[in-house]
């Protein structure tokens, strides 16, 4: 556990050198938040003031919280592992006396912690000033929400890990990574709450880990899922995390064996 | 007397450097990378522009080529104002930055040449002749179809130089062209450049860390330090002035603890219990051959090597000599 903590801190440090880039990213997240909130509020207004349990205020809140979580959850790109596989550097990771998946997860979480406040606070602040935020008044949803965010970030990592592993077998990975971004973009609740999906799309989403990355944490933080329902959401997230991480380990082992046997 | 191909007068370039001071505040200091530089280069000359890292070499070259605006002073290159008349100037000069590629990394060399010919609007009828000459002289034929990113450093640099010469520029500027190259590649490049100069009379300006480059390719040396010109003359003149010594390392078959004195040379060290001896000398006082002969009379020589003075050392000596105002040769 101490090793894990050290790796998390290291991941945090690596990202703290990019201050201006972080500010720029937060600004862009905020402007997109404004556009997204306008779209959700517009749709809710067109539906007569309420849409799948969201009113104008909670709909806007949804958009702002999602924007605040984009950077920590890392929606758009993670190809660190793929690059190391392509360059053969993954052999170094294999030689280290620690589990590679565990080490990369620590780095991913460290980055998320670093981004949490500087990338998360500006969209929330803008939301509070522009549309107002509908947030619960009791502490419990926030405590559970924090757990849910950590699980969401970890699920995102586990899926990125799996996508990156394709580098063991494919030379050009951009197609696979783009596919992951697209799936995440549609199914995680990034742009439209999953609760708005037509039945067929909702079923598709429920069969994937993507809603566990964004929709789940937002549901818990805003107390849309409360009490046992919230625990249920956390359980679903944890189950996806365990499943995808395990799958990632198996595939990694296959890839590593290929590397050892065929020499890359 | 025709107009010099490069004319630099009181050239100065400042940079603002911000360093963190405390958590949020930053101090702002103005640093002069080039500080009152003046020199002329005649058409057809071959000049080595040397100095330590950060002495202002690259900054000067950027101002000569129109990439950077001077803070003060004037530059004329090929009779043009490099920044205002950048595009006109680009047709008359070729520039190679050893550590930065100007080729298209994912295109084959042949394709890069075609693109450059189009960029320089070279006549369709004549440019392939020039290309073939360069390909032949630089031995590029084998990898013309290879994407640049797959070339070795030596191959890439040769490609870069061919690319810079494709439009037959009057002035060729090379920034550290031999950096990182192996001995053989360096040698090939030097032979080629000397030959091009002889054939086309191209003016050559070269920055380098390699004394051999300077010795083999140039007939005039400019030494810059802290943005100022500290020496302008020939290479032998420079080594005389600072007393830059070559060192001959002699390995003997049998240890001889003391070889005694050798005329014109200074014994620097005896190592490995008398198996290895080091003699420092300047070409003005004696030759490597004379030392070898003197040593050979006293012991059987198994191997020898000559260490050239390095540029950092020469510049340091010049600098020390200047601040003391005494005989540079006496500097430690």
């Amino acid at each position, binding site marked *: 556990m101490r090793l894990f903590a050290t790796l998390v801190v290291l991941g945090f440090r690596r990202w703290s050198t990019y201050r*201006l*880039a972080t500010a720029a990213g937060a600004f862009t997240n905020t402007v997109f938040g404004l556009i997204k909130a306008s779209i959700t509020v517009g749709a809710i207004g067109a539906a007569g003031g309420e849409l799948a349990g969201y009113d104008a205020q909670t709909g806007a809140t949804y958009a702002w919280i999602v924007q605040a979580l984009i950077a920590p959850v890392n929606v758009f790109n993670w190809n660190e592992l793929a690059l190391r596989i392509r360059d053969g550097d993954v052999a170094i990771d294999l030689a280290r006396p620690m589990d590679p998946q565990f080490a990369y997860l620590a780095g991913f979480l460290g980055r998320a912690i670093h981004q949490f406040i500087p990338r998360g606070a500006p969209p929330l602040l803008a939301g509070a000033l522009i549309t107002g935020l509908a947030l619960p008044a009791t502490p419990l949803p926030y405590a559970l929400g924090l757990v849910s965010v950590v699980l969401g970030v970890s699920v995102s990592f586990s899926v990125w890990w799996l996508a990156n592993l394709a580098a063991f077998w494919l030379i050009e990975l951009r197609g696979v990574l783009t596919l992951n971004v697209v799936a995440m973009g549609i199914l995680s609740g990034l742009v439209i709450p999953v609760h708005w999906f037509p039945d067929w799309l909702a079923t598709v989403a429920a069969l994937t880990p993507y809603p566990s990355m964004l929709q789940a944490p937002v549901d818990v933080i805003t107390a849309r899922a409360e009490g046992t329902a919230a625990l249920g959401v956390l359980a679903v997230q944890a189950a996806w995390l365990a499943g995808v991480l395990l799958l990632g380990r198996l595939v990694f082992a296959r890839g590593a064996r290929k590397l050892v046997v065929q020499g890359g | 007397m025709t107009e010099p191909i490069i004319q630099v007068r009181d050239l100065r370039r400042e940079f603002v450097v911000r360093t963190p001071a405390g958590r949020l505040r930053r101090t702002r200091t103005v640093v002069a990378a080039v500080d009152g530089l003046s020199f002329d280069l005649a058409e057809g000359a071959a000049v080595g522009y040397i100095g330590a890292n950060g002495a202002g070499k690259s900054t000067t070259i950027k101002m000569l080529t129109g990439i950077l605006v001077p803070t003060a002073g004037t530059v004329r290159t090929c009779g043009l104002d490099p920044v205002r008349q950048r595009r006109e100037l680009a047709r008359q000069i070729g520039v190679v930055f050893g550590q930065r590629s100007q080729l298209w990394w994912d295109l084959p060399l042949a394709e890069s040449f075609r693109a450059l010919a189009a960029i320089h609007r070279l006549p369709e009828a004549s440019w392939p002749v020039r290309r073939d000459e360069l390909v032949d002289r630089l031995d590029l034929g084998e990898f013309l179809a290879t994407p640049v990113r797959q070339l070795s450093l030596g191959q890439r640099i040769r490609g870069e130089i061919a690319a810079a010469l494709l439009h037959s520029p009057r002035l060729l500027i090379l920034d550290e062209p031999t950096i990182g190259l192996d001995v053989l590649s360096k040698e090939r490049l030097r032979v080629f450049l000397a030959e091009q100069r002889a054939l086309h009379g191209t003016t050559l300006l070269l920055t380098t860390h390699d004394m051999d480059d300077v010795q083999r390719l140039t007939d005039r040396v400019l030494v810059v330090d802290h943005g100022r010109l500290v020496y302008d003359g020939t290479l032998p003149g420079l080594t005389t002035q600072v007393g830059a010594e070559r060192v001959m390392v002699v390995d003997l078959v049998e240890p001889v603890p003391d070889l005694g004195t050798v005329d014109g040379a200074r014994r620097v060290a005896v190592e490995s219990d008398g198996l290895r001896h080091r003699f420092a000398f300047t070409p003005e006082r004696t030759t490597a051959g004379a030392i070898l002969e003197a040593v050979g009379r006293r012991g059987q020589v198994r191997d020898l090597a000559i260490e050239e003075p390095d540029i950092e050392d020469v510049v340091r000596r010049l600098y020390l000599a200047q601040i003391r105002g005494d005989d540079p040769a006496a500097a430690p």
Partner: protein
Amino acid sequence: MGERLRPYRVLVGSRMRSQTTYRRSFVSDLLGSVAIGLMEFAEVYVVFANVDVLGDLDFAAAALVFALANVGFSMADLLVGHADNLPVYLREGTLDAFLLRPLPVLAQLITSDVSLRRLGRVAVSVVILAVALPLNDIEWTAAKVALIALTPLTATAVFAGLFVCAAAVQFWLVEGSEFTSAFTYGGAYASGYPASIFSLPMRLLFTFVVPAAFTAYLPVLVLLDLPGPPGTPHWLGWCAPLAAVAVWAVALLGWRAGLRHYTGTGS
């Protein structure tokens, strides 16, 4: 004229060839781009799975807005989108190489890449446009035919100009270049929706500062004879060419200033 353009023809041609050399990865990139186009449209689809109108537009009209905006943006992205990577060009010394060649730097930057894979998104937008157009009840006149033909071109010009503006600003920002994404990609995103859903300040921002509304929404109001939000003059829908000219004027002035800043301060 042909001779003047020869360098650019050769440059663009060699860029295109290099991309299609590796056929399999090119096809997979192309499919990725199609998927991104579909993802963007999925959002509009899901909204209209819940409501019948958004910002006074029905699904067919909203799809028309989306399609026109996205044809324009994806074309601009294909042609000039790489200008958004200016910091990479600065870091790798590519811009210095441009400065050492006898051609205008901006022209070299633009012709230094053509991301053919982005054709995937262009194709998706064109298909949506082709489907959405007949679904709308348009009283065609010669002027409207001219407008629908012109709109994708002016939209391309507006977004391309925005990319150049962004590149110009990036000369100063470098590390913080993502700031500009709020206006380029943000503008593109906003332009795909009826501007009537935005608050007045945002509508003004995306009309007169970042002229995204000119790329689709305002022309569609004219095509469908709709009034739009109160206070929106109807003739504004014809002003897209003016918006394009204005964006490019700012872009070229900004680029000049940016390049001056670069050669003035060095890297």
